[in-house]
């Protein structure tokens, strides 16, 4: 079964540092997403991406966040200047035309 992969599995960073989270989508999927889940809370939508541009973003996805697909395979989420409250699991997802979304295993981001 095809799967979404994410790297790293765990990232520890200091407040104010930049982090890049990487995702390899399922090859024939065209819509990509980032979600996050703070420990013990709901899964929250951050952004969706299609045809090399953002389709929709949430209020969480402010100017500190950016996404890109630099090489046609990886899909990345960059947080420019991390804050303590950015500590969470970050999930990449991709969808097929029925909008069944396939989630990756997640990156646990810890900001100290």
């Amino acid at each position, binding site marked *: 079964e095809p799967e979404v992969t994410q790297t790293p599995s765990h990232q520890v960073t200091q407040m104010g540092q930049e982090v890049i989270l990487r995702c390899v989508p399922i090859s024939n999927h065209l*819509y990509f997403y980032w979600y996050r889940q703070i420990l013990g809370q*709901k*899964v929250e*939508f951050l952004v969706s991406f299609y045809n090399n541009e953002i389709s*929709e973003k949430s209020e969480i996805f402010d100017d500190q966040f950016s996404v890109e697909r630099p090489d046609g395979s990886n899909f990345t989420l960059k947080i420019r200047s991390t804050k303590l409250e950015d500590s969470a699991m970050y999930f990449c*997802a991709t969808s097929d035309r029925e*909008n069944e*979304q396939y*989630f990756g295993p997640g990156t646990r981001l810890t900001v100290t």
Partner: protein
Amino acid sequence: LAKTTQPISMDSYEGQEVNITCSHNNIATNDYITWYQQFPSQGPRFIIQGYKTKVTNEVASLFIPADRKSSTLSLPRVSLSDTAVYYCLVGDREYGNKLVFGAGTILRVKS
């Protein structure tokens, strides 16, 4: 997006059938009902999706009454490994739509 209500938690024993009901009184004509499962420290995983009546796959069944204001996810003969959070989502299937997760139902399966 239609609001969904589901129990916060449920307990079951191995080998039992588990039914988790979700209410969605404001479901729209174009909306589908989708269930996802999430294990600790993992991403959500699609289980099943339906529009009306009954849908069955190798993992679960989904029962949707004619008025579509509720739905029931049925897990046959659960095992310890079915312990997870189960989310009921309601929305149209337009390609690229975000998923809006609620708190879900924590299912604990005991031996």
